């Protein structure tokens, strides 16, 4: 297995470091400043590793790839539109309910539009995970006072 770290052209970083006069930047040199050749290896991995090779696809493969990407974008767009439509329906229901409440009872309407001053987000709202926990639901039997 050939090493992927064959030095090709001198990168801008190495040129800069060489100009700054850092020891061990000459070709094939190893520094004894820290007494550790591992630093050289780390520098080689960070700065001298070759760039990612450019992706070469035939025209057929390119067409396939483009089609797949377009299909993905289309599916995501449809999903987002469905979500937005669902939210719009919910909002419309809420708006109609509030209009009805305003017409019915001004006092109840005022109470409903007054926000709670120190409202905080409930800590029990669970983040979604891939799989459920061991105890899926706490049924909290009547051990409470």
């Amino acid at each position: 297995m050939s090493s992927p770290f064959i030095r090709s052209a001198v990168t801008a970083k190495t040129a800069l470091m060489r100009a700054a006069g850092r020891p061990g930047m000459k070709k094939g040199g190893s520094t004894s400043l820290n007494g550790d050749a591992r630093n050289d290896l780390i520098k080689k991995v960070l700065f001298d590793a070759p760039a990612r090779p450019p992706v070469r696809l035939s025209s057929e493969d390119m067409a396939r790839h483009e089609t797949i990407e377009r299909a993905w974008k289309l599916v995501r767009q449809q999903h987002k539109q469905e979500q937005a439509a669902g939210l719009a329906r919910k909002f419309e229901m809420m708006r109609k309910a509030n209009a009805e409440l305003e017409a019915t009872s001004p006092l109840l309407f005022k109470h409903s539009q007054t926000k709670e001053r120190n409202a905080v987000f409930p800590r029990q709202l669970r983040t979604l995970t891939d799989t459920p926990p061991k105890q899926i639901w706490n049924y909290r039997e009547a051990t409470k006072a």
Partner: protein
Amino acid sequence: MLSIIRRQGLRATMGSLSQVATRTALPAPRLAMAARSYAAAANASPIKSNISTTSSSLVSSTKDLVINGNRIIAGAVLSRQPLILRDLTPFEQEYFTYQKNLERGNAAPFGAEFYFKKGSVAERRWKQQEAERSGNATSASSRGKEASSQMEDELSEEDRVAALESKIAFNDRVTEADRKNDVRSLERSLARTLYLIVKKPRDQHSWQFPQGGVHVCENLQEAAGRELQEECGSNMDLWFVGRVPIGHYNYKLPNAVKTDSTSAPTGAKVFFMKAHIFSGQVKVDNKEIVDFAWVTKQEMKDYVAPEYYEAVKDMLSDF
């Protein structure tokens, strides 16, 4: 720090209170602001929902609110939010596999001898995974094909056993309640939103959201909370999403269901309040409610009357 904020807030409310037209004169000191901070929440323990208590802190009444011949009713749309991520569609799965293979095929060369210490467990695991991947890959890179044969020889029996022991066991996404189709369970359909519907002891329109009449000195959130407690028990940790109703439903009362003969309401207006349940379960009181179910939006069609479903379906989540 918190006390300073509380004092400033209290002064602000005092100011605003004096401006608000008070039909019922509420003496200011009694209207203490609930300190809904995280610090306070940490100490509290019995189930305490966020229902406002300002309007009924002094005056309470059990008289039903009737306006223009319509009973005002507060209903509760109590939902159990999904607990796990939704299942991927087949197209999504295929696309993610495609992207992963593309990324792996076009990635910059990876120096395994740099990242893994020679002879370590991690290096062994990496070599085994590489062998598996080159075995599965349809269009394997040439490097993978040459290396896999070498790697297979290097893997010994104990390496494979070691890799198996470190495997993590995940819990099943399909639960016992799913298999038994137990509609009363809160562990069913973990990827969907479940809504509570209750059954009244009558044959027509028996299944609906829990609801009850608003009393004279109550607001909608308080009424919904009180009705839920009366009908479904207090063994539930609830949280009401604000004081704004999310939907309404008007209907004419059949003559048999007149509660107050003097004012004789002819119709009813239900305003639905949104709430979440975090733990606990419903306990039927067998007087107003005889049964309950936690159902998804699609399943609700099988329980609830058609015109009721048409009126309420837009409030509910599709997922």
